[in-house]
């Protein structure tokens, strides 16, 4: 697991995008989904590996 620090330019990798797409595909979530909701999901995601 790597940390994106405050100094670096933040870039999402393929796993992050796949995770966001899986959230957008979730039929149980009210649509549309706001950017803030996506940010919260990224922050609260349990890291693996």
């Amino acid at each position: 697991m790597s940390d994106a620090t405050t100094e670096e330019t933040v870039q999402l990798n393929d796993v992050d995008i796949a995770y966001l797409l899986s959230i957008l595909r979730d039929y149980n979530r009210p649509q549309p989904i706001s950017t803030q909701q996506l940010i919260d999901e990224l922050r609260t995601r349990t890291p693996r590996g």
Partner: protein
Amino acid sequence: MASTQVAFRGSVADKELADQLFQVMSGFARFSSYDAPIRLSTAALSEFMGTIDMEATPEKLQSLAKSNSTVFAIEVGDEETFIVTTRAGRSPVATSTDSDHTFAVRFMTPLPKPERTTPVRPRVVAPESSWIRDVFVPTGSLDVIAASAAAVPAAARVVEQAPVETPAPELTFESESTPVADRVEDEVLAEPEAAIPAPRTITVPPVMVQPTSLPQAAVTPDPVASEPVLSVPAPSVPVQSFGGVDDVRLATAIGDRLRMDPRVANFGDDWMLEERVPRLGRNDLRRLREYLQEQEQPLTDEVLAQDVLGGRPGSPDFEQLRFAVNFRLSREHREFDFVGTRNQRFWSTGSLPQIGTTRKKPTEIATDYRVIAEDPSQQAEPRSVASIDHVLTFYEYTLGLLPYDRDLQGLLPAPLMPNQRSSVLTFECPQSYTTYLVELRYPTPNRGGFILGLDDFYNENLVPGALLSIERTENDGHYLVRHIQEKPTSARMLELEDRRQRYVFRPTTYACGVFDDYLLTEDRFGNLAQEKPLDEKSRRRPESVVSASFDRIGRKLETGTGFAATFNELFAVTNIERPFAEGYLRNLLDSDESGAFAKDPDTDDGYTYVPGSTS
């Protein structure tokens, strides 16, 4: 018609009589089909035969039929006896209709669907790189894969295959270990479970793929190894933790990546999968356009979704419908313009009447405010201040506008969409319970920005020189505008008479707080009466406007060669002709290279103007 030759039995006379009988019966049913039964009573036949000189009693006919049973049949009825034959010369055979396989029956009772065994495909355990990109593997799934792989027989094992970069030979299947003869022998002697295919190597044909970050995997049987060896291709891109990243930068990163993905639909801060966004047909777009034209003003996405598309606020799919309105209309650049903000999404279409004054073209107003666009000190971060105060000038009052200067830039939102030229905002005046639709025109590189549409608010509540405050709300498209309420005061105030195009003073009653130095009353600026507005050429030169303002204020120097005025007087009068920001006017007066304008040492914050130095 060919007659049927039939052989009869009996004597010659009987044969002749039988032949006559057959001819009579065939002639009677000559239009019947060959195998249709011809049924006639013996009495009727006997009577007819008598008429053709062939005497035959019914009994005789019956005996003839009996002796030629292959040709005739005898049916005994209740009262009569019938002789039956066919035109084919055969005794009729009882037939029955076979209805077992009629088309109608097969239609109504179709055969049951044949049972087919579905082919079982071997499941590939290792995910492909493209799948990894699209689907998030939840936490712990790799552990599950590892656990399940341990239970898999050694025959199906996942091994890594290095990415292929160079063309490989053609597809070949070759046996690695035993020759054919030995293999046949082994198959005969082997136990049932030994029928597993012999180990082999599958060489994948050349596929010119770009090496990806994730290794590709192939399923290869490996019965030799005793210990199960599992190598699951772990993604080379690690899962990041965004604990130390602020929301703004994370939102930018999300937007940068998702906006490039054609599967994702975005409008403002909202995201959906494109395939799940409701679609609007040509008819829907036409109705939306016509409704906007009918209402003669920009409308919000909520109104459009509700009034035109029939959505119900509060229903589960209403937000999706709103998103569809925004997302789909944003793709129709030719017909629809987005003129809203993040929270209040207005849409407009061509040929809508202009919001605000028609006294001056918006492009001319924007040119007048060019000084704001060119002044770096007039730039501010959008939505960085909660409220502003502003003193109304004559120029702003007459045209019902506000400059998009540093103060308003800090209060109002930036354009939401790229290439968005204007935003429609709502200004609510709680003191008069009135909400005004105003249009914020964003600046361009060589033209300034401004707000149009406050004519009525000004005319009903304010005068030039009045103080007003604008306060933002949580909705970035809605603002509260207030003025200071005072006791009604009457004065003769400056106005521009449209018909004659002259400045006049008219009695006016106002009940708002004013900044006295900026008040354009007849008492202070009587020289302005019957003055004409400056011509366009003089108006375009700020120095000319300032010198004309000195002249209009009309306070001559004691030397008689020039004029004097305070800064506030100059600010009020110059803003009659064109907009002057305080800083801009101060800079013009202080740094005049011609020497026409100078500080007045005798007056507090005063300036002098000596004609002749500038035209």
